């Protein structure tokens, strides 16, 4: 690898470190995939491919970090490859996590309404100006999140013009009543529309199951909570919750940080600190016994399943071993779940696992969709793989391959300025050490087979997992019953029972 690779990122150091050679192992040696029957089609490794045994280690360019006088944290990553600029503004404390009861959807609606009118611009004017400038601007917040975000991007040629609009909608929204009514109508229509998708139904039930009383249990507003959205409520939320000292502004692209920071001071001069109460709800805790939920979706030809339980928060010391464990089990197209259920059994187009680690603990979760007829067999394989990673230490080669995969992947993030910025943003938001991403590959490489088994045992307890299946209840209820008492819901989200055929 030539060091001249980084003509753009002069801050980068590219070095080759000796990686873990995985060549030379026994040909055709497979990862342990025990199976009672002989699979019709077996994953096989021939180890003939020319692979560089080294991991291309990259040092990520670091954005310039600044704090404006009003307390707004700013991260600027210069990247002059194209005349593009990407802006993301995260406003902590303004997310759905803090919503008062009965007005679910307030945080997202407030954010969405920002672009529907300001003191000097109508909704249509904002839309036309943004589009004329070739820019994009959106705002929103997801359920369970402590923050809302504004996302904008455009050309550097006219950055001042479109960024002024971003600032205007942030600081001077007028929340016009007629536009609010229109937004509520659109959101109401979505309430119904989203119920047609199996993925929505599985998320709704799974989050209910794992989060319990925690606000992250909610994934959608209701008709009643939308009724409660008023101009006054949105204005109050904006006034009280959009505080600069809790916000983080990330900018990546064709800008000059040195010139931009003084400008930002001017742009945001009118944004004043205020006191925001940010008491987070009590953390969710992992369920202690297995529960099974069936969402009856008539006419389904597949069963969409999710299973898992609350695991860790982002700052947990188990985060790094969890990354490795999850990668081995279900982190992609070389994960055990994918290779077993798809490549060998042909049950599915894809099954994966992931985990959500935020300021509070979130779930580890595995899932996918498979044809109704193989639901029972697929569930057996899911639990088999979970038990396998708990009961047996990961073979050395598989462990080294996984760690290497995670470490080597860093190079790809250097293509996209937003990817690098995103890593820096998460470092700041979760108050991770300054050198967190620089030392991340080394931390990954230090994970042992015992670490992997330990976190699998700790967080992947099959006896305590929440299991959700969305599909044709007439055909799959009996398949689910061996896993525990089955609670049945209809696709409207209401407790029900399966009609007898």
């Amino acid at each position, binding site marked *: 690898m030539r060091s*001249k*690779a980084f003509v*753009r*990122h002069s801050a980068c150091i*590219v070095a*080759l470190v000796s990686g873990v050679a995985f060549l030379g192992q026994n040909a055709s040696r497979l990862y342990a995939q025990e199976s009672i029957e002989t699979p019709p*089609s077996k*994953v*096989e*490794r*021939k180890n003939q*491919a020319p*692979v*560089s045994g*080294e*991991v291309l280690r*990259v040092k990520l360019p670091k954005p310039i970090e600044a704090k404006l006088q009003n307390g707004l944290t700013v991260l600027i990553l210069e990247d002059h*490859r*194209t*005349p*593009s600029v990407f802006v993301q503004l995260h406003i902590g404390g303004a997310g759905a996590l803090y919503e008062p009861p009965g007005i679910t959807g307030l945080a997202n609606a407030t954010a969405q309404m920002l672009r529907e009118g300001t003191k000097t611009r109508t909704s249509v004017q904002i839309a036309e100006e*943004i*589009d*004329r400038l070739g820019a*994009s601007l959106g705002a929103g917040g997801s359920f369970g999140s402590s923050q809302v975000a504004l996302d904008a991007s455009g*050309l550097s*040629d006219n950055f001042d013009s479109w960024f002024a609009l971003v600032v205007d909608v942030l600081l001077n929204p007028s929340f016009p009543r007629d536009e609010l009514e*229109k937004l509520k109508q659109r959101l109401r229509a979505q309430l119904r*529309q989203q119920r*047609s998708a199996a993925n929505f139904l599985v998320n709704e039930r799974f989050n209910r199951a794992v989060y319990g009383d925690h606000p992250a249990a909610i994934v959608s507003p209701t008709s009643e909570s939308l009724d409660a959205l008023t101009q006054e409520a949105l204005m109050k939320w904006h006034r009280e919750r959009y505080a600069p000292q809790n916000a983080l502004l990330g900018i990546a692209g064709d800008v000059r940080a040195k010139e931009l920071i003084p400008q930002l001071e001017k742009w945001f001069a009118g944004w004043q600190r205020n006191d925001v109460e940010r008491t987070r709800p009590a953390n969710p805790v992992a369920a202690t016994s297995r529960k099974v939920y069936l969402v*009856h979706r*008539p*006419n*389904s030809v*597949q069963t*969409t399943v999710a299973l898992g339980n609350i695991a860790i928060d982002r700052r947990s010391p188990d985060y790094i071993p969890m990354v490795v464990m999850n990668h081995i089990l279900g982190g992609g*197209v*070389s994960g055990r779940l994918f290779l077993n259920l*798809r*490549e060998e059994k*042909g*049950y599915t*187009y*894809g099954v994966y696992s992931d985990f959500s680690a935020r300021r509070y603990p979130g779930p580890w979760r595995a899932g996918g*969709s498979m*044809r109704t007829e193989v639901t029972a067999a697929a569930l057996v394989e899911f639990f088999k793989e979970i038990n396998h990673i708990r009961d047996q230490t990961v073979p050395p080669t598989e462990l080294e*391959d996984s760690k*290497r*995969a995670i470490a*080597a*992947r*860093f*190079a*790809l993030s250097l*293509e996209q*300025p937003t990817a690098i910025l995103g890593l820096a943003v998460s470092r700041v938001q979760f108050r991770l050490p300054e050198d967190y991403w620089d030392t991340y590959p080394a931390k990954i490489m230090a994970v042992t087979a015992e670490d992997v088994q330990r976190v699998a045992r700790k967080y992947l307890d099959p006896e305590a997992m929440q299991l959700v299946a969305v599909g044709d*209840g007439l055909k799959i209820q009996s398949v689910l019953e061996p896993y525990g008492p089955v609670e049945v819901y*209809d*696709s409207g989200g209401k407790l*029900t029972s399966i009609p007898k055929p």
Partner: protein
Amino acid sequence: MPEQPVKTAKSFVAGLIVLVSIVAGTVLESAESDYDRTAAKSTKSFDVPFKEFRLNNGLRVILAEDHSAPTYSICVTYNVGSRDERPGRTGFAHLFEHMLFQGSENVGKGEHFILIQNNGGSANGTTNAERTNYFETLPANQLELGIFLEADRMRALNITQANLDNQRQTVQEERRQSFDNRPYGRTYEAVIETAYVNFAYQHSVIGSMEDLNSATVQDAVDFFRIYYAPNNAVLSLVGDFQMNVALSLIKKYFESIPAQPVPPTPDVTEPEQKTERRKVIEDAFAQAPRLDIVYKIPPGNTPDWYALSVLGQVLSGGVSSRLYQKLIKDKEVALSASAGPDERRGPSLFWFSITARPGIDLAALEKLVYEDIERLQNQEIADWELSKVQMQLRRQRAQQRYSTRARANAFGHYVVYYNDPQLINSLQHKYSQVTKGDLQRVARTYLKESQRTVVTTMPKPATAKAAPEDR
């Protein structure tokens, strides 16, 4: 990822042809769409410098160095898609795409993904009506790996009954997940089946369950020999490598793969449509009716196609667009609305797709769309609308330049479709030729009733005593 045929017009030109792929989730269709006229104030050039080679066996090679990140992407695009399938074998081109991950002489079944992932890369394959492509993005020090993997399967694919059966099941699951178990999952097929008469474009890429069941090992062996030859493919490489090193590796692994007779070119011509066609389908999952209105238009990369592409953006590109402002915001009759052309080498379709608000009079909604079309036919669009489209294209083009994969895939697209890799740089000029008069003219020429197909997707009434819905 199987893209839903028409959703929001988030990317200009992209996504109107259904694309199915080996794994869900990672496909970015690389619709390179540029437009640059008044906007060209910046001195920065968007041009992608490249060199073109042809090996003795006919394999075309495009190399574009870019050292701005320590990565590269390789893409092999084969000139074969669902339009090359014969009746009784719909879905075969895509099923065959899956077979390319089932092992070859020196690569085991499933090992392709393992090798790519273990070395920090990502990979996928996609199929549409026109072509099939395979691509990998890897750290720059794994240059040889990507070249080797693509060559090994072009040279000596391992086709077995067990692997074919396994992937047939996977593809059938893909069909269920992406079409049969989804709202509006059957709409796309209903539209092309009605709009087209010629089999080549009349059937879907994913194909029917029945035809997938009929595919045999012999079909696969024949298909591989006929279409997966070096002289029927283009290899594009973009990123952090030295051209001479890359070229010698490509020669080392590819040059000895023998050429094959040139495959037949499918007949994609359509008889002239003389009257409107209409169809109504029922959808067990949909909660709201959807209206799909399509018009026959010329092939991609023609002046009129570019004009129609700009027209699509005027209608549905961004929140200020005509359809969004009128149907979604103002009259509140639609949940979503998009418009734009799909891109084929033969007769293409200009596609309106509008999800109605439940309870709305569909005939009235349809009439509103026709009013907008008449407005385009009778009045020139405003200056700001045209300059808006120019700016949006310029931004998209700039943002797409970061990805080596987007560029590698674009080269494959332009060479296989139009035999013109230079299009990656000249597309901008083609768009800049479009005038307001052109827009009016193409609206009059193509968006007319006799060339129209209308498919209405209606929510299927719930059967009695089934699980009650909440409203």
